[in-house]
């Protein structure tokens, strides 16, 4: 019995060590966009980022249309995350912490022309500096082709 107690303690210790090896889930890497659907995914190995572009229904319809004419009620959200090696599999990289969230919303003017409001912030809502110029960034986001998925 005297020998048994330390053995049990060692086993419990080993079990506790094994427990700490269990991965910690990271819900903060998720960024669900209500009433929006995926337009496409973008990988950029130069920047070590991976991004998901979401759009509302008008934006999705634009993606499906053969004649490409933007509508005034389109909304887009581009969520960019760090690209990192997938744990447990050398051969795949996956999203990590979110780097930025860019939002583009179309706006119809009385004259009939459409302008776009653009914002870029981090997951905590802090505004991030615009480093590439809004016009180019807006065009990049709204002109992404819709990824084919049945």
């Amino acid at each position, binding site marked *: 019995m005297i020998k048994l107690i330390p053995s049990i303690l060692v086993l419990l210790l080993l079990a506790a060590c094994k427990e700490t090896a269990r991965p*910690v*889930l990271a819900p903060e890497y998720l960024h*669900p966009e209500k009433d929006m659907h995926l337009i496409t995914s973008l*990988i950029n190995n130069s*920047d070590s980022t991976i991004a998901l572009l979401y759009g509302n229904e008008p934006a999705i319809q634009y993606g499906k249309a053969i004649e490409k004419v933007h509508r005034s009620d389109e909304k887009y959200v581009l969520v960019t995350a760090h*690209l990192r090696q997938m744990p447990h599999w*050398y051969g*795949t990289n996956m999203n990590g912490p979110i780097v930025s969230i860019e939002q583009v919303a179309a706006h119809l003017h009385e004259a009939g022309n459409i302008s776009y409001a653009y914002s870029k912030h981090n997951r905590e809502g802090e505004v991030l500096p615009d480093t590439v110029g809004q016009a180019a960034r807006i065009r990049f986001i709204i002109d992404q082709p819709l990824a*084919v998925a*049945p």
Partner: protein
Amino acid sequence: MLAATAGRGSFTDMETRKFTSRQRKWIITAGIVLFVGIGLQFTSPAFTNPPVTNEIAVPDEVLAIFQKACYDCHSNNSQPTWYDRIAPASYLVASDIREGRSRFNFSDWDKNPPAVRELLLWEMVNTIEQHKMPLALYTWAHPEAKLTATDLTTLKNYVNTLPGRHRVDTAAIMQPDASHTPVNTPVSTTGIAYPADYKNWTIISSTDKFDGGSMRVVYGNDIMVRAIEAHQLPFPDGATIVKVVWGKQPADSAGNVLPGNFQNVQVMVKDSKQYASTEGWGFAKFDGLQLKPYGKTADFAITCINCHRELVPDQDFVFNIPTK
């Protein structure tokens, strides 16, 4: 005094008898062990090497690593040592060889389609990197089979030269039309129906699977997402994930890589009773724009779970979940 002496004499006699009795037990036990041990040798499994039909063709330095650490169980050129052939160890060795050859066999390599061969090679790298292979008991008995960091680097360098590593999708992007739309909801041989509403679910991860030239977006249903938010592992029954798989277009001038052609949709459904033999997960795959269910029988799920079981047992056998 006499009584005391008589008493001591009696105690010594008992000690002698007890000691003799203990010895007798040891002798009997040793005899039984010897008898059973010798008997076991007559039923010990024989080790045979079937003919080599198609040896794997890899660079010499890679082949040397496989021969050193893997061939005893994963080829038709097993070379058990004399102590491997002694029962009861021989039973374990025979079982490992049987299991190893059934998983993949370097001597029967062309039995696997090219894409599977590549996947197996990447899987080997990963099982070695995570110290799952070669088996610890095997390297304990065969120290010469231990792999070094240099061996692993050699293997990594090799898999990075495989065609899938650099595959890009340059074909025109196929758009779905009426001819692609299945009349009925496709159902996998594992009993899983194509979950057409997955696009309304939450995306839980996105990946660049550069080992095979594909990119993926992974959706989770409400049960799955709630479990992630609650840090709940293992995942509850009803949790479902859907992986949408595309090829990869060549990178643009800014380095952006966009989805190429749609390849397939892969599904994992947690049902601990229905899929008890595959760790509670049901697997399904629907190929191409016509969403053709993959696999002639439900046995393809065994291949899936073999890899998941080996590499991500602590993640409830799921790779594509967001973890720190």
